[in-house]
């Protein structure tokens, strides 16, 4: 054997001996859609007039949830009714959250699986050694009906992570530096595989990194399975899974060496996630600080933010918004007293939603406003008005910036 992990998984799922570049029709273990993408998928599914592969389908309303207006409510209702009428999995208001976080918490993501999601950040489950990839809605509807999808088996970029990250350097900083190296579109159609000293990177940080491989244009990501992976999976109801690893002599498209010990806390400046600087070079005043999303809305992120905010006050010019990535994260933050800490500092803590990350609602930016955000994209107009500007950073930097009233680090407060 001399195959990459992604070649092995696509071979198994398609029942073929496939290699990078081959087109295959593969059995998909799970297909996920949200309130924006599911309605179009449901139309496609209805067009086919077939029975739903209900046990494979997960509906997680999250984008404009709770509904922000009547049209959003219509899309939400259509998604929910489909799930209820067809007996699919459904994670709704009260037990759901941001779709990718829920997919990992509820045990759908596990090593060796092939998962398709009608959302571009489906790449996230590579953190748990699954091959997971973003797809469109029509094709999600076809999977609803057939359980299968066509794929081109991707080439793999191997990223060797060397050394131990310095204090204050998080998964967000590592992936921003990788994006700076390979650029938006630099991994287009490819799998970004992470190996090396991953023992220094906790699962939540791996999720952040896997999540933002999307910003390099990657089809999927893949972290080797290790003790941290197994430990995370033990706490989840995953069922059986199969550990897969690239062979040493596999044919990689390229190998990139990253010295994690040389990475500094970093920030992506407008208007692209690959437009990365050391955070120490940026001091811009901010109007909003946002912690949340599938990228950095986990309990570890909220703990970091709370530890910085404890006993301090958010600058009066700034609105700090902390939006947990799931109900489970919310509940844990409540139990640990983190919500108290954040609101006592003058922050706003809400229920779970994707809303603000994509300029939907719950934190939309006005003209010329500046936001430092723990999310994944800072395209023109991404979080609101076309003249607003978004800086992407780790949640510790976002929390520190909220206190400082400008972009800065925890060391400065």
């Amino acid at each position, binding site marked *: 054997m001399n195959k990459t992990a992604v070649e092995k998984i696509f071979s198994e799922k398609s029942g073929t001996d496939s290699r990078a570049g081959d*087109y295959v029709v593969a059995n998909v273990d799970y297909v996920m859609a949200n309130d924006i993408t599911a309605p179009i998928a449901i139309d496609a599914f209805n*067009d086919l007039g077939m029975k739903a592969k209900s046990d494979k389908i997960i509906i997680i309303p999250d984008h404009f949830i709770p509904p922000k207006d009547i049209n959003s409510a219509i899309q939400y209702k259509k998604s929910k009714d489909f799930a209820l009428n067809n007996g699919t999995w459904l994670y709704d208001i009260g037990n759901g959250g941001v779709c990718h976080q829920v997919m990992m918490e509820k045990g759908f993501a596990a090593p060796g699986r092939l998962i398709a999601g009608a959302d*571009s950040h489906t790449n996230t489950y590579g953190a748990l050694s699954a091959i997971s990839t973003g797809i*469109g809605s029509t094709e999600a509807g*076809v999977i609803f009906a057939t359980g299968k999808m*066509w794929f081109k088996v991707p080439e793999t970029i191997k990223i060797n992570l060397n050394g131990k990250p310095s204090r204050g350097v998080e998964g967000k900083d590592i992936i921003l530096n990788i994006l700076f190296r390979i650029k*938006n*579109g630099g991994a287009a159609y490819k799998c970004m595989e992470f190996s090396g000293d991953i023992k220094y990177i906790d699962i939540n940080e791996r999720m952040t990194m896997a999540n933002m491989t999307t910003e390099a244009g990657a089809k999927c990501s893949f972290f080797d399975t290790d003790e941290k992976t197994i430990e995370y999976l033990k706490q989840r109801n995953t069922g059986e899974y199969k550990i897969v690893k690239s062979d040493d002599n596999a044919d990689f498209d390229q190998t990139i060496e990253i010295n994690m010990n040389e990475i500094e806390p970093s920030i992506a400046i407008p208007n692209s996630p690959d437009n990365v600087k050391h955070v120490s070079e940026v001091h811009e005043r901010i109007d909003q600080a946002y912690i949340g999303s599938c990228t950095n809305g986990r309990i570890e992120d909220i703990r970091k933010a709370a530890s910085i905010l404890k006993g301090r006050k958010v600058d009066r010019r700034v609105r700090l918004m902390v939006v947990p990535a799931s109900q489970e994260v919310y509940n844990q933050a409540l139990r640990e007293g983190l919500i108290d800490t954040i609101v006592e500092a003058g922050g706003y803590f809400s229920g779970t939603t994707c809303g603000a990350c994509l300029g939907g609602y719950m934190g939309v930016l006005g003209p010329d406003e500046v936001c430092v955000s723990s999310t994944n994209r800072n395209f023109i*107009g991404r979080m609101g008005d076309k003249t607003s500007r978004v800086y992407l950073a780790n949640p510790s930097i976002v929390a520190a910036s909220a206190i400082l009233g400008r972009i800065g680090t925890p060391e400065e407060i």
Partner: protein
Amino acid sequence: MVTTISGRAIVLGDNVDTDQIIPAKYLNTSDPDKLAPHFMENEYPDLAGSIKNGDIIVAGKNFGSGSSREHAVITIKGLGISCIIAESFARIFFRNAINTGIPVIEAKVTANNFEKITVDFQNSRILYSGSEIKFKEYPEFLKNIIESNGLINYVRSGKW
């Protein structure tokens, strides 16, 4: 499948992302008629109004990067765009286009805005202002989906 398409070039740059193509605030509908007027409105507020049925988008690298929103393709189809040519495409946008039956071609074309261009699918070439650009044929697998006019018809045909 059509063998030749002619239309005016609508020229766009590199890294046109789906947030530009259709901002997220409009994602509370998937109606092409409601989405189409907002095409690229943050960058070019007057662009959607100037597009005519049959026009051809000519873009640079990484067209359609960003989110998986099929609304991006629906918006473009809603404008009556007949074909999208780009130096390269972001992967989900490419899939959405193939699966919903709008022709996408990977080629570097340097046409001027509103210049007439012709795509000759039979001979895999693009013609404009006296120049001819060859493009790579689709692989057999994708050809079958395209010739079925999208994934739904392809699955219905029983070839799946």
